């Protein structure tokens, strides 16, 4: 567990989620959502101790190659095929404070757009040296980085001719279970972003743009790998100003 002793413990409840910023549950252009979307109103609950707490993960659980998808599944001396990239950024909260010790897990298709999964039937080739998963934990300033190959776009059964833009799936743990988030990162300049029914579930263009990682020329490593920068924002906490303390606590 990361040491928290030099930080004030975080005990505030989270800002209410701006549901208009996220996709609604029912988005008929993304057909699978039709039968998987709750139809009743959500029951609102200002976070209790059950949700403002959450598991923390120690840096010790992370293996040396966990943040290197080019090598973490490859045979010794070999590497995954594709455009070598670095994805890096920071995890912040809505108060713009870094989230230290955040566990990030990511998964993606290979350079040809093929996932290593038994239910995947796309005819693009499997890369024997690419597994497609990785993970890392943010440092004290909220920074993270991993190395991978740029995933390919792929077709999927939704409309007759729907394709996913190149993307990387992210799962993020902050410090409270109410912050739990899964999202997808896209790449600057990809015209397919604006054709994708899953991207278009998000109603606000500015919110979509928050998922598009710019090419980061400054962090690009000459003769090796281009860099893309992707910052992630988790829900922020209220300061516990004037909030009632529980009796006996």
């Amino acid at each position: 567990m990361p040491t928290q002793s030099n930080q004030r413990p975080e005990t505030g409840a989270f800002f209410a989620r701006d549901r208009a910023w996220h996709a609604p549950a029912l988005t008929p252009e993304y057909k699978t959502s039709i039968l998987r979307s709750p139809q009743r109103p959500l029951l609102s609950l200002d976070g209790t101790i059950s949700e403002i707490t959450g598991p923390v993960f120690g840096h010790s659980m992370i293996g040396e190659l966990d943040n290197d998808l080019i090598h973490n599944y490859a045979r010794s001396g070999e590497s995954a095929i594709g455009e070598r990239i670095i994805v890096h950024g920071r995890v912040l909260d809505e108060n713009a404070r870094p989230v230290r010790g955040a566990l990030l897990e990511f998964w993606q298709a290979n350079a040809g757009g093929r996932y290593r999964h038994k239910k995947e039937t796309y005819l693009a080739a499997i890369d024997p040296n690419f597994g497609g998963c990785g993970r890392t934990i943010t440092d004290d300033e909220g920074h993270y980085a991993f190395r991978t190959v740029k995933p390919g776009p792929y077709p999927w059964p939704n409309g007759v001719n729907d394709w996913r833009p190149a993307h990387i799936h992210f799962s993020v743990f902050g410090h409270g279970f109410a912050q739990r988030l899964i999202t997808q990162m896209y790449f600057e300049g990809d015209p397919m972003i604006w054709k994708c029914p899953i991207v278009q579930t998000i109603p606000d263009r500015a919110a979509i743009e928050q998922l598009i990682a710019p090419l980061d020329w400054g962090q690009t490593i000459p003769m090796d790998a281009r860099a893309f920068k992707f910052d992630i924002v988790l829900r922020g906490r209220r300061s516990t100003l004037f909030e009632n303390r529980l009796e006996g606590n």
Partner: protein
Amino acid sequence: MVQDLHRLKETPSQTAGPYVHIGLTPNFCDIRGVYETDLGTAMVNERTLGERISLRGRIFDGGETVLRDGMVEIWQADAAGFHNSPSELRGTADPNFTGWGRCPTSGEDGIFHFDTIKPGRVPYKDGRWMAPHITLWIVARGINIGLHTRAYFSDEADANAADPLLSRIEHRARVETMIAQREGNIYTIDIHLQGPKETVFLDI
């Protein structure tokens, strides 16, 4: 113009998609050798305090079909009602209990299953005791933003009747959607994403 609050917007959620198991439980879907074990498979060890229980169930879509590509995570207090989290200031949680579990719903039957312990009670914000419960978070292809709900326990009728959250459910018949039914040491809770048995989901 007024002063800027300097707040950022939360990163928008996107569906976990059909291949969430690759990222979160790679060993489960035969991607071996990257991680030693999948996270969240072991919540307890032989020294964990409390009553051993299992929590299991399935997730149904609006056509009563079982989801086999979803994932459930749970988070709960230990037997004494403390969370294994730095934000838990009321006491120290059992070091032999993680409080967090993760399980794919897959295979033939789509069952999720957690071996855990029955949690102790924790207080609501106003100091009243909540009935013992486990927090669930559900993601899958077709779910645009993860769904939070709770599992309460069928053998805690008195505590459930006084629970501050359950008492706020206007349509009383829906309270049952959050009660896991006990048989022996197994509690079963089925999640219904929509339809007449739709689970009460929470905006936390």
